[in-house]
């Protein structure tokens, strides 16, 4: 269906965002000898094998011991190392929340918490692994920067950018092969939203995999004569509130789209921004206070209302509330 649409961004190949992380990490390792990698028995899943192979003396297999991994990483920062921890998003956050809170966030350590297999698009493994609460948990921590890039290229660029930024970062990415629709030479600016498509009737603020769904939704809306603006919010925290307010001042309403619970996610942060400044109708695309389940990624996105068709419906609803 999307093939026949005239989307403003197109793709010729798909790849997983986790590979963008893996390839970015190797490059970061070449640029800076202080970059070190730690992994909790998921080297293949996190695509950290290339880094391990090229820099064995800077790579640490931790085993299935995520709490210890967070502490080790915090300790390694003390003489200037830049540790990148790798495990699934579930085990990168909820499982080790207190370790991150005390040893990394409160202690303001330069640890990069790199989290794969986030959200419903993990697919068949089901709800135990499909974390939908991680953005909320991480954005609540003072000192923490929270980033959720949208495709292979953006994830690679983000990985390189966080290596150069000093401070704790949560970098969230995923498992499925996903369209590569952003340029390979993009400059990733932490905290700076990217206006991908200009529009006038409604703004779609999307993060992670759902940025592609937003691009598709824009084309579908355009066919119906509705002009949507699409803004890629790769950095959930610090949030680019200026970009949000400027866009909504123009369009008068918005939709937030994320692979996360309504509670605590990007939509919450946008709503808070609007309410404090200039309230406007907002519709939420996300998971409504439920766990996920097993299934194919695209089927799950459809069932839980997280695809382009649902963004279109939400956009029309938001416009109707103006």
């Amino acid at each position: 269906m999307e093939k026949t649409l005239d989307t403003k961004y197109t793709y010729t190949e798909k790849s997983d965002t986790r590979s963008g992380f893996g390839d970015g990490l190797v490059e970061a390792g070449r640029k800076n000898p202080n970059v070190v990698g730690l992994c909790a028995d998921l080297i293949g899943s996190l695509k950290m094998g290339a880094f391990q192979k090229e820099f064995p003396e800077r790579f640490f297999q931790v085993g299935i011991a995520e709490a210890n991994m967070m502490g080790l990483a915090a300790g390694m920062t003390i003489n200037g190392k830049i540790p990148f921890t790798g495990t699934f998003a579930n085990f990168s956050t909820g499982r080790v929340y207190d370790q991150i809170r005390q040893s990394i966030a409160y202690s303001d350590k330069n640890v990069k918490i790199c989290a794969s297999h986030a959200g419903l698009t993990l697919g068949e493994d089901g709800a135990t692994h499909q974390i939908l609460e991680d953005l909320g948990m991480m954005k609540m921590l003072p000192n923490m920067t929270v980033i959720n890039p949208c495709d292979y290229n953006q994830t690679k660029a983000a990985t390189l950018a966080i290596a150069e930024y000093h401070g704790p970062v949560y970098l969230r990415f995923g498992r499925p092969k996903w369209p590569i629709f952003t340029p390979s030479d993009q400059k990733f600016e932490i905290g700076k939203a990217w206006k991908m498509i200009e529009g006038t009737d409604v703004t779609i603020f999307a993060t992670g995999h759902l940025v592609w769904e937003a691009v598709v939704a824009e084309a579908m809306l355009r066919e119906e004569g509705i002009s949507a603006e699409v803004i890629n919010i790769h950095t959930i925290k610090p949030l680019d509130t200026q970009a949000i307010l400027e866009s909504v001042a123009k369009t008068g309403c918005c939709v937030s789209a994320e692979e996360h619970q309504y509670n605590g996610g990007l939509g919450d942060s946008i709503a808070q921004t609007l309410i404090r400044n200039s309230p406007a109708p907002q519709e939420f695309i996300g998971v409504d206070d439920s766990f996920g389940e097993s299934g194919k990624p695209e089927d799950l996105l459809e069932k839980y209302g997280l695809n382009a068709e649902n963004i279109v419906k939400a956009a029309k609803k938001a416009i109707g509330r103006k």
Partner: protein
Amino acid sequence: MEKLTTEQLQKTASQVRRDILRMVHEVQSGHPGASLGCTEFFVALYFNQLNHNSEFSMEGKGEDLFFLSNGHISPVWYSVLARSGYFDLEELKTFRKINSRVQGHPATEEGLPGIRIASGSLGQGLSVAIGAAQAKKIDGDKGIVYALMGDGEQQEGQIWEAAMYAPHHKVDNLIATIDFNRQQIDGPTAVVMDLDDLKAKWEAFGWQVIETVKGNDMASVVEGLEKAKALLGNGKPVLNLLHTEMGFGVDFMVGTHKWHGIAPSDEQLENALGQLEESLGDY
């Protein structure tokens, strides 16, 4: 820093105990019991063993580093840091008060010199120390990394994740000490959650374990730390099982968990201070 003799260390310990009691009394809050129990260890470490610089740098390159995992015994650490010159002694008056760098539990947020990581939520410090030790190894830094844990803290799962990791990765520039006072908040460890046999447990995980049987005897504590140091560099980390008495130095506080986290009254303070020589002058 010049190494103090055993006699000088003992005198320092008496003053540090006074500091602990006065800090906790002033704010009627804090943890005197294990602070008093670990006083010989802290004094021996900072005034005899540690290669450190009170002109504090977070990175501490070339220095030995110390990490406190059981952060609630902050009073003893603060006293020793201040008396080592990391910050002004007068700042001890601000312990646990608002707008202070001397927080209830050690923290980096306010920038108190000498502290490299926050602690208080138990079980995390050993992992941090191992990470710091590995980072030193990468850099060819010969500094030693020290960690202190509580014995009750051995009930945390993360401790054993770390215990398994360090020997596997041959982290042999690390000396971890356990304050083995056999007391925790709810009572004796043997009643709350039995730890025995701690020595066998750590040995089974691949550590070289030494026992400092008289953890409140200054010469024994120094000897234990020397012995631990001699075991470094052979592919295995070292665990120092430091037998102490909670509340040591004050007759009505010793050997009980009752003084884990309560402050002495005015009368109790006077009684306690009467038992401890003001060897270096109160702050």
